[in-house]
């Protein structure tokens, strides 16, 4: 993938500026790195579920109604005072 166009697109997504020479160098680097990454495509996942975190955690506190200036409109909505 010494694909300068793709590198430029990724740079745009990441909002990182590159000179022309830098784009060339980065394209070469990415080509080699993505070749290493490509082995994941061989992985037989069999629709295995995917996890985004190793350890299940659930320490979120219950919702806590605050602010007397809020007006409860319906069961799941509040009217918030204007800020500006």
């Amino acid at each position, binding site marked *: 993938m010494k694909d300068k166009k*793709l*590198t430029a*697109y*990724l*740079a745009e*997504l*990441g*909002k*990182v*500026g*590159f000179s022309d020479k830098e784009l060339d160098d*980065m394209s070469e*680097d*990415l080509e*080699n*790195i*993505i*070749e*290493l*990454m*490509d*082995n*994941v*495509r061989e*992985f037989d*996942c069999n629709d*295995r*579920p*995917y*996890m*985004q*975190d*190793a*350890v299940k*955690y659930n*320490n*979120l*506190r219950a919702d806590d109604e605050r602010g007397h200036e809020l007006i409860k409109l319906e069961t799941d909505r509040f009217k918030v005072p204007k800020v500006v």
Partner: protein
Amino acid sequence: MLLKILRAKLDNRKIGATELTKQYLDRITTVDKRLNSYITVCGEEAIEQAKVAQKMIDSGNAGFLTGIPVSIKDNICTNGIRTTCASKMLADFVPPYDATVIEKLKNAGAVILGKTNMDEFAMGGSSQSSYFGGVKNPYNTTRVPGGSSGGAAASVAADLCAMALGSDTGGSVRQPASFCGVTGLKPTYGTVSRWGLIAFASSLDQIGVISKSAEDCGFVLDCIYGFDANDATTSKNAKGDYTALVGTDISDFKIGLPREFFGDGINDDVKGAVLNAAEYYKKLGCEIVYVSLPSLEYAVSAYYLLSSAEAASNLSRYDGIRYGYRSANGTDFNSLIKNTRREGFGWEVKRRILLGNYALSQGYYEEYYKKATQIRTRIISEYAEIFRQCDVILTPTAPTTAYKIGEMENDPVRMYLSDICTVTANIAGLPAITTTCGYDKNGLPIGMSVTGCAFDERTIIAVCDRFERDFVRGEAVI
């Protein structure tokens, strides 16, 4: 010097906290110009903290870390002390708050000597990508100290502090501890609060401890662990009392050797030293069990895809608008941001941002990022199976000993592959500790890792400690 010995000296008035701090500061002044392990030295603040610590000791209120001089990796926020992540982007950034771990250390009366050098934004394995210059290994200054917590590890090895805090996303506490001949602990994900740790990859980052012994790591972990309302990923399952099993009989433990960690890519000296350590445990009466982690071959790729994707998101905040470096070359909003990030970030950081965006972008997400998360699930279940067969596993910490400075600079793939021994502990969120188990033919330290079940730091610390009691460790002469 071991923390236990320092504690006794302080408590028995053999040395005062201020005198001890001054000794370390003097040594930093003399020695660190050869290592570059510190970015910021907090001389005056450290002396003031030492005075407070001495009052605690005098009034009988000293805890284990009171008066102990420590170094902090420069990606952990310290109120009023610049925190740079070794990057031009944050070269002048001074946090307005302390990380939770810093608050805990201060409450315990520890003395913060300074902020240690590292790979930029914790991305790297050599501590050479720092905006403030690379770090050198105290064992041999032509060699890397490892990374990204290379400054932390070097500062402990060269006695420029009594212990250090680092961060470990893919091995960044353990690998430099291995290269510098000291002990490094990565706790279970969720054990230590990440509030105030400048994020690299949020599902993998964990603050860890570097010291001269497993027991010392346990003492420090006792201080810094715990649920934190500021960090929703901290767990209430962390047990504490991490030295509870130190000194107990471990002969009924089963120690697993995963076959895939002893393949062709591992240096012969390293393999030999770790297998000798396995023999040591066998002679103690432990059962050695051969186990398997078949998905190891995908681990490095999965790690770099997951971590780079998260990093691409986490580093998007550095835009020169609210804080940090701002380019003088912007003509409009977009060009200001692009130039800021072009000038403010180093090459490795840019590589990871682009790789992360590649993994997440349309057309590639399914084949790369989603696959990486599925590999993560597989690795977690393979470890669960392993720990049905044994209590801990023993592996090399790195495929090699410390390599020469500049050797891997232009070969990122080779550098990434050298993380093979460490990344799975981060992927699975498991605790792992490294200690020195031998020296190669050049006299460089070889590290072995003991990895255990989630929240079972007590066991891995005890197993590691048992080896350390009989192993004669060398010292870096600098």
